[in-house]
């Protein structure tokens, strides 16, 4: 068994990528939200429910540079999501055996 890092770069308000990732990611996997995927980290958006429901099962990360670019520094993010920079993104890829992009 390998350990997996799932990458989601699409907004849950536009596409189904996050839903599919959450349905098919194995318990214990990591999920990194990047690019437009970072909108899924917003605590007060209706999409928060799906992510919250998986909090015990998956470990969530969000790419800080994409959060700042989109003006979300002043918006509450979901508790339990870890913010990383590009270096942290690299570390996550190193720490997991496989990276799967939900394109």
């Amino acid at each position: 068994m390998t350990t997996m890092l799932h990458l989601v770069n699409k907004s849950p308000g536009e596409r189904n990528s996050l839903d599919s990732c959450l349905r098919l990611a194995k318990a214990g996997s990591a999920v990194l939200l990047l690019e437009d995927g970072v909108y899924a980290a917003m605590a007060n958006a209706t999409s928060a429910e799906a992510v919250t429901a998986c909090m015990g099962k998956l470990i969530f990360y969000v790419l800080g540079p994409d959060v700042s670019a989109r003006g979300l520094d002043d918006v509450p993010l979901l508790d339990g999501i870890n913010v990383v920079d590009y270096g942290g993104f690299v570390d996550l890829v190193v720490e997991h055996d496989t990276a799967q992009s939900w394109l």
Partner: protein
Amino acid sequence: MEPWEEDGPETVKRFMYVNRKAPYGTIYALENLEVVLIAAAFDQDVSVVFLDDGVYQLKKNQHTAAIGMKNFSNTYRALDDYDVEKIYVEQESLQSRGLSAEDLIIPVEVVAADDLREIMAQQDVVISS
């Protein structure tokens, strides 16, 4: 449209520019804004709509240095200088994203879907990207 324009040699059409995509993830937000700024120079009836993820284009406080892309959010402020005054944001899109008008970089008219539906139905030309 004013009465004298109806009688003038030039047709005035109602142009609506629709934004449904988030900024930075794709270039559509930026390139659609470039169209609107050009369109403002023509004597037409221009309105701009932000709905679905398009509302994110107007989020205050964008800082793009760490992603290495140009921050164009301040350019929305130029819409006012260009006399583009009909700027609509769909209320339902804002709400489901946990945002309100105070989160936006420019003053806009927040309209419910029921009202936006009527506004859209009055357009002559709709340009989306």
